[in-house]
């Protein structure tokens, strides 16, 4: 604001010319993620530990539920900063019903379907109160948070129920079997001869310890994903160029290369451990689907519009109450999926599971740049937010931060993240 002295002027000129402020504003959380990762990766005595294949894999598996719930939460937040406090309890309730069903010998696929449907039904039910009766979302879902925690206890009779169904655990769990098997090695046995410690190139890239058990299938999936991503991005840039949309082409290419390399790097880490985790399939499907919905579809557009200006949206012929209903029905469905993943990872369900999940989801969205007043926020931002939380959690465990202090750190991170967001937006004016 000041900028009257000569030195400051030239600095702000420089900042303006190269859009330094805009860059930082856009990529604050990515930079924070990089800094945090570097801090943990260079921690004295624990160097590089957080980047070990087992830890990268663990990061994904442990945070699968966060990604899924935060996606649903983002839809609610977009409609105007509305949150859903009930998801933790709904996760527990759906998982409880499913586990009890499977324990009594009911077909696993039927159980999974019922879990999803129960989640959806709860979402529709809560959405009804919020959208049609106009009970404030905070209160309606607070009621749900109590009620479904109670129902979980009722269903479980207060005790833990285990899952023994191996297919379920393989598909949604986190055990040794819950990875895509290395079919490429089965198909091409010659590969076993290639991936040896003697192969200097592969040893150099992958690392001596990992080269023999390297999961080729997983790496192929990563290669294909990166390729598809690059193709789509190139097409987008070409179309934009044709239409004359003034987007910086070099910037687009740089970010494309960075993301592609990141995909390959994660792929290599996963391949060096047990391969492609099953849960990542579900998470990737959810994230991809909802990134598409928010950016490309009419209902996605309506979510942003309602959060931005509900009255204007209603006068544009959009049935705004149905947009709220959609958001809450949707988060119910995703809570059902999160319930499945939670039960899979824990190999069962305990009446206290899922407590605080809603807060993790909410924090991820806000750290990821969603506005607390609605109308702005992206799935990509939410992914960064959730990842940042996950890295901090994991990092603190690795470097041995006292468990009591871990929540303190999380709280501080949330506050700082939102503070950055608010400040950078204020500067723009």
């Amino acid at each position, binding site marked *: 604001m000041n900028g009257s002295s000569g030195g400051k002027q030239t600095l702000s000129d420089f900042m303006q010319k190269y859009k330094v402020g805009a860059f930082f504003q856009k990529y604050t959380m990515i930079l924070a993620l990089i800094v945090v990762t570097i801090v943990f990766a260079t921690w004295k005595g624990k160097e590089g530990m957080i980047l070990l294949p087992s830890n990268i894999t663990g990061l994904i598996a442990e945070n699968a539920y966060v990604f899924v719930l935060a996606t649903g939460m983002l839809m609610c937040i977009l409609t105007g900063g509305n949150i859903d406090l009930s998801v933790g309890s709904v996760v527990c309730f759906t998982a409880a019903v499913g586990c009890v069903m499977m324990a009594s010998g009911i077909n696993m696929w039927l159980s999974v379907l019922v879990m999803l449907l129960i989640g959806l039904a709860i979402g529709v039910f809560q959405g009804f109160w919020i959208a049609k009766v106009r009970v404030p979302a905070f209160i309606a879902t607070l009621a749900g948070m109590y009620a479904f925690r109670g129902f979980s206890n009722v269903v479980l009779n207060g005790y833990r129920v285990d899952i023994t169904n191996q297919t379920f655990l393989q598909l949604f769990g986190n055990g040794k079997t819950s990875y895509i098997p290395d079919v490429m090695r089965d198909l091409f046995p010659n590969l076993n001869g290639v991936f040896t410690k003697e192969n200097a190139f592969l040893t150099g890239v992958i690392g001596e310890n990992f080269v023999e058990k390297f999961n080729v299938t997983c790496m192929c999936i990563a290669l294909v994903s990166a390729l598809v991503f690059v193709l789509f991005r190139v097409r987008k840039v070409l179309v934009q160029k044709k239409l004359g949309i003034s987007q910086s082409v070099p910037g687009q290419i740089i970010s494309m290369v960075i993301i592609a390399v990141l995909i390959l790097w994660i792929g290599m880490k996963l391949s060096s451990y047990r391969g492609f985790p099953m849960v990542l399939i579900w998470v990737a499907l959810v994230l991809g689907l909802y990134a598409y919905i928010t950016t490309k579809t009419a209902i996605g*557009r309506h979510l942003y519009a309602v959060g931005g200006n509900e009255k204007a949206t209603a006068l*544009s012929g959009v049935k705004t109450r149905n947009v709220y209903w959609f958001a809450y029905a949707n988060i119910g469905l995703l809570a059902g999926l999160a319930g499945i993943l939670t039960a899979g990872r824990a190999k069962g369900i305990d009446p206290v599971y899922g407590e605080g999940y809603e807060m993790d989801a909410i924090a991820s969205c806000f750290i990821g740049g969603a506005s607390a007043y609605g109308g702005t926020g992206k799935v990509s931002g939410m992914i960064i937010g959730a990842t940042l939380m996950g890295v901090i959690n994991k990092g603190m465990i690795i470097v041995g931060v006292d468990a009591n202090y871990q929540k303190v750190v999380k709280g501080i991170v949330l506050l700082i993240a939102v503070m950055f967001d608010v400040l950078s937006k204020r500067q723009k004016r």
Partner: protein
Amino acid sequence: MAKILLEMKNITKTFPGVKALDNVNLQVEEGEIHALVGENGAGKSTLMNVLSGIYPHGTYEGDIIYDGQVCKFSNIKDSEKLGIVIIHQELALVPEMTIGENMYLGNECGHKFAIDWNKTYSEADKYLKMVGLQESSKIQVKTIGTGKQQLVEIAKALAKKAKLLILDEPTSSLNEEDSRALLDLMLSFKKQGMTMIIITHKLNEVSYVADKITVIRDGSTIETIDNHGAEPVSEERIIKGMVGREMTNRFPKRENVRIGDVKMEISHWTVHHPLYPEKKVVDDVSMYVRQGEVVGIYGLMGAGRTELAMSIFGQSYGVNFSGELKLDGKPIKMRKSEADAIKHKIAYVTEDRKGNGLVLSQSIKVNTSLANLDAISNNMVIDGDREYAVAEEYRDKLKIKTPSVEQLVGNLSGGNQQKVLLAKWMFAEPDILLLDEPTRGIDVGAKYEIYCIINDLAAAGKCVVLISSELPEVLGMSDRIYIMNEARIVGEMKAEEATQENIMAAILRSGRGV
């Protein structure tokens, strides 16, 4: 010559990338009413924010000399201590609180730890009497109308012992009667020796009330006009200074006027207030619009114009509808649904573009397509390229000034926002456009462009209903004029026979008066 109370010397204020004020000079004599005029974004409000300490000393260059002293305000309290009080355009009252609580908010009287409520209310009543408000200071602000709320704001300023009162667009939300009362109040304060600065777009008010008029354009002072001559300064004279050229014609000429058959007709249309169902907000209104016709609806604020338009647009306002709506001669059974209205090719362009019209946090592109997403999507999936092309097309057509259609609407000026709002509804391809105060709060140049768009729409065979509380606008633009008062149509006349006088006469004749 009276003494100079305030002098602002060579004020320069820069925001990142923009010079909002460039060497502005302003002299205000004690006991005068000084008007500050200029187009939107010319820098009037910025100048007043510098004066009142909202932009503290050090963030601008130049000097403020008040009462012979050089002032270095670091916040608004500092300037208020010296009696410089600003009343902002948007009313800053808490609706749930009483008038008295509002007047002393942030300035509570009594002991540090205990408010003296008896003193608060007795003092408040005293100041309310001074502004001519008959209400008790113990009633809630939400129970009184905007005209009275504006008076409360002034009473609040008086309670701060104002010596220099700055009024930023004080009449923008008032009807003509309340506006006139407010201006007369200003004149009576002047007699008691108060100095005032008024910022306004309404040039007739300026020539009525101001002693001197300073014109600001593009962040610089252009001239100061003395208004003490025998004849009041003409509006054309002021406009010339504001836009830097002579505006010979404020309304573009209609060409290709081809008026066709009756397109929409309502008869015995009655609507009730949503909260007080016994009250009629639209009372037995019958009217029609023909193809290619611009129909003006003139009425004072609160006459029921907005309510009429919104009730036609998918019953988006009111309850207990009765009457008949015919399109192309066929009666239409419309449900309470905006989507239905759009399907019947009716568009309502709201008077409140920020509140009801635009999603400020989204881009021009997103706003343009919002009312007609179907046209650019296949099976609910939006075709981004087509959407972009559409937004570009309307940017060109309506001359929206922006670097890109990806620009957030919240960053645009009022005139450009209004154009985006028009673009949105033109893209919805309506046959009937209900334009509610389409030029409110935008500058003269942008108004002219909006008028051109209206003429183009009519030339393309659309029906335009132009609702306005500016008489010259209604007279200058319409083919036919309906006059509304107290929820009823009280007159209808052709443009040729309509004059300011007979329109006002129609309102007066309607019995219940202005």
